[in-house]
């Protein structure tokens, strides 16, 4: 009770019904509290060892710390988060981390090497969806006691199975799954073999600037400042409210019910950006919108047809007119902001050339094929614009809009022809996207690794080998050059027309300062956000 009573008293409100009537109608968010309108119904768990969804990752990024991280102003530079320094052995297999002193969990206890080892072992043992980011270095439930060790209270030693590029390991450890939880609290909440997973789904035990007060699915998440944090945040409480409808977010922002709206559409941002009472913060995200062309379809398997489709798309027109504030044109599989990203844009709308290529491929009159896409805005609008683009060169797509998960289910079963899809990078290293887009070690139906290339049935032994070579390269400059070459070839041959890169845009009342949006969701930080 006390919190609100204090708030009301502070703002001079008396406890009369009429007064509160007026207050409720003209609510301003209370001081020290920031209210954020956001679509948060993607959260299914807040346990960092299990969560993979955008919102959950973002919360994990504010509640937990990792060994290392990348600063938002220079996203490709690795800096210590909990770790003060690190060294790699000669054979590139043993990595030693030295922890900073004085980092504290929200319980007040200091972060020790024991907590770090526990957290990473926990990820390996639980083996949930994001665990592969850590597991790919050869950690298993059986060897983790030897490969992930705390040698003294401030030293952690990791041993990988293969020689590993230091940057690759560090980028992976900087992902949300590398979050460090407090051993004492979590192991005390464990039920059976669950490593405290059930409890951590809705609670937190971290050393980040905030801790979780409550999560109510599809309703709200409340965070409060971690007073013991090394850098306590300026804002006492952050309330994320689930507001599904962007118009409602805009209304609430204008009415003063929300300080910050996270999911506004381009047109809404446009109307607000002229208004001086709002600040627009925008950042390129590691998320791509692309058209996948299933190679099981014999027509789409022809290189000229794929190139024709890439030339039929009006990249500029779609971006400028439909999503000026939410997407930017981008045509390579590594999004801008990630190391090694290629910014060249070889394709632009050229109907004549596209028609010529189609004719060369033996389809002068075009052809018909199915086109799956997520029906929500703005992807649905983009899909319709694409339909018109394709129709201009004679391709007649059968439009099959669906729920996001229905579209994903279909492409995972390789039953689509064309599909408009979104892909977000899992971790900061270029390998995250390279593996997805240009590796397909087994094109069989029961392949273990169903990469995006597999889903489009694109059989590429040579590219797969080159992608594997790139991840093993320990020389950073050489590695970047390898990825650039991969992307150039990919642009010309792949069954993917990468179109747009997502821009995440937050609009806030101009009394707010310090909101940082990250290239990856878990880099979005509320640590410095405050009311002016």
């Amino acid at each position, binding site marked *: 009770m006390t919190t609100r009573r204090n708030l009301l008293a502070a703002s001079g409100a008396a406890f009369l019904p009429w007064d509160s009537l007026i207050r409720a109608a003209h609510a301003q968010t209370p001081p020290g509290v920031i*209210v954020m309108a956001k679509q948060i*119904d993607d959260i*299914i768990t807040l346990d960092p060892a299990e969560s993979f969804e955008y919102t959950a990752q973002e919360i994990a990024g504010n509640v937990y710390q990792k060994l290392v991280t990348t600063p938002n102003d220079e996203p490709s530079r690795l800096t210590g988060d909990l770790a003060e320094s690190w060294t790699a052995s000669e054979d590139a297999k043993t990595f030693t981390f030295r922890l900073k002193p004085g980092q504290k969990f929200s319980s007040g206890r200091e972060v020790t090497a024991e907590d770090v080892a526990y957290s990473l072992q926990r990820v390996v043992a639980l083996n949930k969806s994001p665990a592969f980011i850590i597991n790919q270095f050869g950690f298993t439930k059986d060897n983790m006691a030897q490969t992930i060790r705390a040698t003294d209270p401030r030293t952690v030693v990791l041993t990988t199975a293969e020689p590993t590029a230091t940057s690759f390991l560090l980028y992976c450890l900087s992902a949300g799954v590398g979050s460090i939880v407090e051993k004492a609290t979590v192991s005390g909440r464990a039920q059976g073999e669950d490593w405290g997973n059930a409890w951590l789904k809705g609670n937190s035990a971290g050393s980040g600037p905030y801790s979780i007060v409550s999560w109510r699915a599809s309703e709200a998440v409340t965070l409060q400042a971690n007073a013991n944090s090394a850098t306590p945040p300026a804002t006492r409480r952050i309330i994320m409210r689930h507001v599904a409808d962007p118009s409602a977010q805009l209304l609430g922002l204008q009415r003063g019910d929300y300080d910050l709206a996270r999911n506004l559409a381009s047109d809404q941002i446009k109307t607000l950006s002229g208004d001086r009472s709002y600040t627009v913060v925008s950042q390129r995200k590691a998320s791509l919108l692309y058209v996948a062309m299933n190679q099981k379809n014999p027509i789409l398997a022809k290189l000229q047809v794929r190139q024709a489709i890439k030339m039929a798309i009006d990249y500029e027109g779609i971006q400028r007119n439909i999503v000026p504030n939410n997407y930017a044109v981008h045509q390579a599989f590594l999004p801008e902001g990630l190391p090694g990203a290629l910014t060249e844009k070889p394709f632009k709308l050229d109907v004549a050339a596209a028609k010529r290529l189609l004719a060369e491929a033996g389809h002068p009159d075009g052809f018909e094929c199915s086109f799956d896409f997520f029906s929500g805005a703005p992807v649905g609008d983009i899909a319709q614009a694409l339909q018109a683009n394709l129709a201009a060169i004679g391709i007649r797509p059968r439009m099959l809009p669906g729920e996001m*998960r229905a579209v994903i289910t279909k492409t995972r079963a390789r039953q689509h022809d064309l599909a408009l899809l979104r892909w977000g990078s899992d971790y900061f290293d270029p390998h995250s996207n390279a593996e997805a887009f240009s590796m397909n070690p087994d094109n069989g139906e029961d392949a273990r690794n169903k990469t995006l290339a597999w889903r489009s049935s694109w059989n590429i032994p040579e590219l797969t080998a080159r992608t594997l070579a790139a991840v093993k390269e320990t020389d950073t400059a050489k590695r970047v050059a390898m990825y650039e070459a991969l992307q150039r070839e990919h642009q010309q041959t792949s069954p993917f027309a990468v179109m747009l890169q997502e821009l995440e845009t937050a609009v806030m009342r101009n009394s707010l300062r310090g909101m940082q949006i990250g290239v990856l969701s878990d880099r979005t930080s509320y640590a410095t956000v405050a009311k002016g």
Partner: protein
Amino acid sequence: MKARLGALAATAASIPITLLGLAVVTFFIGRVVPIDPVLAVVGDRAPADVVERARIELGLDQPLLVQFWRYLTDILTGNLGRSVMTSNTVWEDIARFFPATFELATFAILVAAILGIGLGVLAATRQGSWADQAVRVFCLAGHSLPVFVLGLISLLVFYAWLGWLPGPGRQGIVYQDMVEPITGLLTLDAALANDWPAFWDAVLHLIQPAGILAFFSLAYIARMTRAFMLAELRSEYVTTARAKGLSSTRIVWRHAFRNTLVPLVTVIFLTYAGLLEGAVLTETIFAWPGLGQYLTVSLLNADMNAVLGATLVVGLIYVVLNLLADLLYRLMDPRTR
């Protein structure tokens, strides 16, 4: 009387069969939804072995009939399973979402009943007049307006432009998590806690969605009231009462209206049952965390335990309310006695 109760008992006994039918339909619809339920658990990025493990944990590797049988036996022991989306048990979710729907439906039905009866009586006593026609148009308009259009317009006018009413949601931010949930009904909980500002906040949030639902339900109640009243007003005893010189207000309310009460209660009960099913569209527009929204979101994410559980509960409520309406009618109406 005894025979009637016997018939009623037979009806009550058929409820489980209805519910079983409901479970069958929902279950099999759920299994053909073209969304892989495992996706909701492990996401799109999980490696094959994680996916496979989740599939086994969910029992999806079993044949459909086995899955259904397992589900049925679970229900009989009161276990509705766990929702993937919220990671709570379905019972916990229903306990959380149903009060919101209940509160909304109750407010809506109160408004609809009071206005609907008033308008219906007005129309009946002034049959054929412009007032009668106006009531008719008003009611039909309420029944013809798409809820989502009205909801958007209402938000635009009362929230965005005039600022008289709060926006979507059940509670102001300031009041969030502040009232101890006892019944789950925010208004009642706030009143119990003697927290009047929170009470008024909850009431204000109710006005728009409940008003819109009421406007929509009003037509039916008003029309039936008018029909019942007309029948009563034409009956002999009213003519007699008029001849005796009783005031017309007295005749209308004390005599005629009283006799329409029984069928009216039935009408209102049934409307209420419809509202309790959760008004999906209203809940969506006003971000009302009720059963309708829960069902929709679960459905679109192939969260089948949640869909099945919530549908069963909603179906049960509907069937029981129908039965109650029936019971009331049979017990109270002198003509069926």
